[in-house]
């Protein structure tokens, strides 16, 4: 039977209600008086609260003027005398704008104005018996609003704004109250999350209520409110279930579509707004994360910081998140994550006298398996992170309130809230949260965060007003506004019903962030190890009487930690953020090199003997590696010891031959293709072939993930591949008694990028090193290098920086299918019981899992948020290493450490430190300056014990002493902190 859709052309009853809701909003301001004495000065922020000005002079600012410029800050000052008609009334200051403003009235921080709120209370700031009002506004205009989910904010976006006037005004409070009633009830009426009959009932009764209002005079507002109270709020015929905890929060990206210098003001505005809401609503509580943001407030807004301390004391303002910033939790090393906690908690302890027991990471792009242990040993029992529930593209993460078991077996309480971390506290969002909550029977309440964010701003008056009406609505789940710690303690603590998730918290999304902006990743890796060396050498020199540069090292670490923020290190930011980060990294390297100093000998900072072939920078050397001249040597240096190395040219190349791209070394017979890929890798020692298809095969794929360009690699990225063209076929360029170097030059089909590949084979080492020197100018391309291995295995073993994780290489279920691209640290390994292939890298994290091996993600070229992402010069290396046994038998982790931690020139004495097979991850002076602190890491999955020559203190990761021992007993993947006096 034919169906004809009826399209109504006249207004439906619901549309009539919507229209009157808009009219109601127009009546909120009852009386207003324009402030005409306003002046403006334009500036641009160039540092933390540092500006340059277009002119030193202020100019008049009139209604209708264009104001703000791209990336501009406006300084507005004004004066108004309250007119007779408004004296002794409750007044507000109101200004509608897309900008983010901090407003001072009569010298006091009165509040904030931004796209999410356009008025603030005036009376608390009036001078007694005076009608004079002085205004000072610092406004920072962003074309990208705090929160793109707010339609009002989107409507007013843009760099150049029209000044709509500033006013002192009187609010029609009864009308405002009715407006809030309509806001909450219309949200329910429009939401499919609620009972259909109730929504029909609501539509009828809202129409009835609004019929009582004269929209010309706004008479009848009280009658309408009374009607709603009696007919809707007192109706209990419609019931719901559920129990939702509401926690006020604002997500604040330290850098993203804005630079970190801008966050100084964003943060201050957010905190100011929330504190003013606390003044207005004594029951309102708000959770603010990242000690770094508190540190910045303390530095640049001491007056606000003093007020903040009182609010923290009273319990309304809650510091959450033990980590210094909300870091990416895939790429930073274990020691970096520990320092995030150490410096974060140290700040909280020093300034507020508290140890925060939660990690608050709502927006991070998945979480490493090493986190539970680190958090637990840093005073953190609770972990909160949202994205796995709302962003996974394949599987529904099965828990919301649960236990998370880490790589070492440590367990912490975890909450992955069912919905987004940015909500505006609407009934539909709360109901949706409850509906999606999977641990209804075991997890207690579910967590719903409310408040605008990404760039701060936070909760609004409207969100709190709505919250005060929730208990009147029987259709809604029970709600309770509380602090974050109250939610966690009440529902998770000692809850033995909670299910356990044992494994990494892999986010099935944003897989490109392991690769995007590869220079940042490589620099981060390099500096993590330089910090290790700088601290270790400083300790050794301190033992010889040189003062330990504690303040400088702490400052350096904090600079690294800041740039590990989850929209900086992953690469999901605009170009100026990248430039800031690279500038920071360059400065950091200079400062660390200064601390590391120099010497006449080469020092092995590893606590294990060093045997593998190593590149030694030397102007007289014949090899150019990563732009530096040098030579390869076999240091054979003992742990924490020095050795003398010098270059002596030996041109005997009899160990090496090549014929028609078939190279012969003491270890291998290798057949190359002209593009540098290896079609056969025959292992002479093991009498076996390692290649199945091609090893070291370069691929160029189309990479069009869409809106989340910098973030995502799609599962079908292999659909379109562009063949690389060979400009100069592989040929031998250099050979001496140590190394043979072959080079090839390729280019992309667009001819825009050149790709030089150097393959290095060694006389006395099974290492096969490949260097890529790339001038990259592509758009929407992903470069990978694949390794098809003649290995029968179902597991790819990947370094996490504190132990290894095994990932299945088959695609039997949707869980393996979703993990087609994962994060690794220094190495991965694909082995049978008798041997396999390891791939050791210097700063690459993205890894494709293949049925017969792996593919290393090398470069991307996305255009959002940064048009120039990854465009430019790149130079990176990795080593392919066949070996006996599995990765542990072959000491791959130790070799990867050697590859990543070069010998340093330093004249220091060998210390009497012996920690057996444990990796000395860090040595430092304790924060209180009393001890030498050692961080030891078991990375091979072994148990054991080490007898120490003297008693040592045991510590947690916050450097609190927990005991004393003469024996270190360790278990698989354990991180141990001990301390000695000196």
């Amino acid at each position, binding site marked *: 039977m034919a169906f004809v859709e009826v399209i109504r052309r006249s207004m439906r009853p619901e549309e009539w209600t919507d229209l009157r809701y808009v009219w109601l909003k127009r009546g909120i301001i009852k009386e207003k008086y324009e402030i005409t004495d306003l002046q403006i000065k334009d500036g641009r922020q160039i540092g933390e609260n540092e500006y340059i000005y277009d002119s030193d002079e202020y100019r008049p600012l009139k209604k209708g003027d264009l104001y703000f*410029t*791209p990336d501009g800050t406006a300084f507005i000052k004004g004066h108004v005398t309250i007119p007779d008609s408004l004296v002794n009334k409750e007044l507000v200051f109101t200004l509608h704008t897309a900008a983010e403003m901090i407003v001072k009235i009569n010298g006091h921080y009165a509040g904030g104005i931004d796209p999410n709120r356009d008025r603030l209370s005036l009376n608390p700031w009036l001078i007694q018996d005076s009608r004079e009002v002085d205004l000072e506004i610092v406004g920072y205009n962003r074309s*990208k609003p705090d929160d793109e989910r707010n339609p009002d904010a989107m409507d007013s976006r843009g760099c*150049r704004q029209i000044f709509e006037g500033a006013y002192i005004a009187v609010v029609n409070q009864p009308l405002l109250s009715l407006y809030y009633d309509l806001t909450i009830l219309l949200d329910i009426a429009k939401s499919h999350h609620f009972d259909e009959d109730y929504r029909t009932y609501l539509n009828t009764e809202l129409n009835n209520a609004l019929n009582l209002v004269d929209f010309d005079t706004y008479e009848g507002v009280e009658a309408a409110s009374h009607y709603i109270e009696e007919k809707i709020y007192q109706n209990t015929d419609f019931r719901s279930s559920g129990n939702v905890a509401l926690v006020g929060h604002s997500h604040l990206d330290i850098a993203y579509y*804005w630079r970190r210098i801008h966050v100084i003001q964003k943060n201050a505005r957010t905190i100011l707004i929330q504190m003013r809401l606390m003044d207005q609503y004594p029951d309102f509580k708000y959770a603010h994360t990242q000690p770094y943001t508190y540190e910045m407030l303390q530095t640049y807004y001491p007056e606000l910081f003093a007020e903040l301390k009182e609010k923290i004391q009273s319990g309304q303002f809650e510091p959450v998140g033990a980590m210094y910033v909300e870091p990416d939790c895939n790429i930073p090393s274990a020691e970096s994550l520990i320092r995030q906690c150490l410096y974060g908690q140290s700040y909280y302890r020093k300034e507020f006298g508290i140890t925060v027991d939660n990690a608050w990471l709502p927006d991070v792009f998945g979480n490493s398996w090493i986190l539970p242990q680190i958090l637990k040993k840093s005073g953190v029992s609770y972990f909160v992170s949202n994205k796995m529930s709302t962003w996974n593209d394949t599987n529904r993460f099965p828990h919301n309130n649960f236990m998370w078991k880490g790589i070492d077996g440590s367990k912490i309480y975890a909450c992955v809230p069912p919905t987004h971390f940015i909500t505006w506290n609407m009934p539909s969002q709360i109901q949706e949260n409850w509906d999606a909550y999977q641990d209804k029977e075991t997890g207690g309440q579910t967590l719903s965060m409310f408040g605008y964010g990404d760039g701060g701003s936070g909760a609004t008056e409207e969100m709190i007003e709505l919250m005060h009406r929730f208990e009147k609505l029987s259709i809604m789940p029970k709600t309770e506004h509380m602090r974050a710690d109250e939610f966690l303690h009440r529902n998770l603590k000692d809850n033995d019903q909670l299910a356990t998730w044992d494994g990494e918290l892999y986010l099935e999304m944003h897989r490109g962030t392991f690769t995007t902006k590869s220079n940042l990743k490589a620099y981060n890796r390099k500096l993590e190890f330089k910090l290790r060396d700088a601290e270790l050498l400083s300790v050794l020199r301190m033992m010889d009487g040189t003062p330990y540069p504690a303040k400088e090292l702490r400052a350096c670490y904090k600079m690294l930690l800041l740039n590990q923020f989850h929209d900086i290190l992953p690469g999901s930011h*605009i*170009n100026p953020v990248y430039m800031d980060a690279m500038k920071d990294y360059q400065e950091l390297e200079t400062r660390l090199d200064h601390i590391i100093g120099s010497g006449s000998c080469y020092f092995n900072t590893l606590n294990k003997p060093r045997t593998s072939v190593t590149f030694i920078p030397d102007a007289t050397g014949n090899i150019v590696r990563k732009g530096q001249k040098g030579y390869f040597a076999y240091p054979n240096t003992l742990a924490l010891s020095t050795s003398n190395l010098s270059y002596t040219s030996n041109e005997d190349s009899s160990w090496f031959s090549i014929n028609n791209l078939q190279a012969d070394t003491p270890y291998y017979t290798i057949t190359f293709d002209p593009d540098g890929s290896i079609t056969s890798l025959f292992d002479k020692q093991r009498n076996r072939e390692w290649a199945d298809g091609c090893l070291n095969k370069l691929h160029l794929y189309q990479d069009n993930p*869409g809106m989340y360009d910098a973030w995502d690699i799609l599962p079908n990225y292999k659909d379109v591949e562009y063949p690389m063209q060979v400009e100069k076929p592989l040929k031998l360029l250099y050979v001496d008694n140590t190394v043979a170097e072959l080079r090839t030059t390729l280019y992309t089909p667009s001819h825009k990028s050149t790709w030089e590949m150097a393959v290095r084979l060694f006389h006395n080492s099974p290492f096969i090193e490949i260097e890529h020197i790339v001038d990259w100018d592509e758009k929407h391309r992903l470069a990978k290098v694949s390794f098809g291995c003649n290995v029968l295995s179902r597991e790819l073993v990947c370094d996490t920086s504190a132990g290894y994780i095994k990932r299945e290489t088959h695609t039997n279920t949707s869980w393996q299918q979703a993990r087609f691209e994962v994060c690794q640290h220094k190495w991965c390994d694909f082995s049978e019981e008798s041997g396999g292939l390891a791939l050791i890298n210097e700063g690459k994290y993205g890894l494709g899992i293949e049925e017969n091996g792996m593919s290393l993600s090398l470069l991307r070229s996305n*255009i959002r*948020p940064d048009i120039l992402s990854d465009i430019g010069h790149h130079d990176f290396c990795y080593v392919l290493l066949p070996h006996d046994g599995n990765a542990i038998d072959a000491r791959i982790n130790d070799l990867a450490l050697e590859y990543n931690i070069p010998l340093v020139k330093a004249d220091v004495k060998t210390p009497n430190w012996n920690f057996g097979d444990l990796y000395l991850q860090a040595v430092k002076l304790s924060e209180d300056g009393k001890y030498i602190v050692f961080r030891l890491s078991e990375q091979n999955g072994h148990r054991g014990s080490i007898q120490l020559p003297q008693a040592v203190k045991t510590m947690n990761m916050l450097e609190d002493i927990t005991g004393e021992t003469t024996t270190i007993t360790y278990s698989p993947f354990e991180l141990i902190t001990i301390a000695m006096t000196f």
Partner: protein
Amino acid sequence: MEDYICNTIAPRVQGDGGWVEFVSYQDHILTLNFRGECSKCTILDRCLDWICQEVKRDLQEEITIHPIRLKPFFWDNK
């Protein structure tokens, strides 16, 4: 003009997630590519006026801007 656009105007636009590139300048007609957030800005005309004012103030030239919007493929749907 190219130097002014690249080194004075572009950094300010980039600071806000936008992107402007110099294409040509001839007979007081300045052609610019707008990418990134600028490519879909509904009030780009206001920025064009601002650039004209800045050029007039700093380079003493009266110009007209010919903008070319280069939207990324995922926004290029109209």
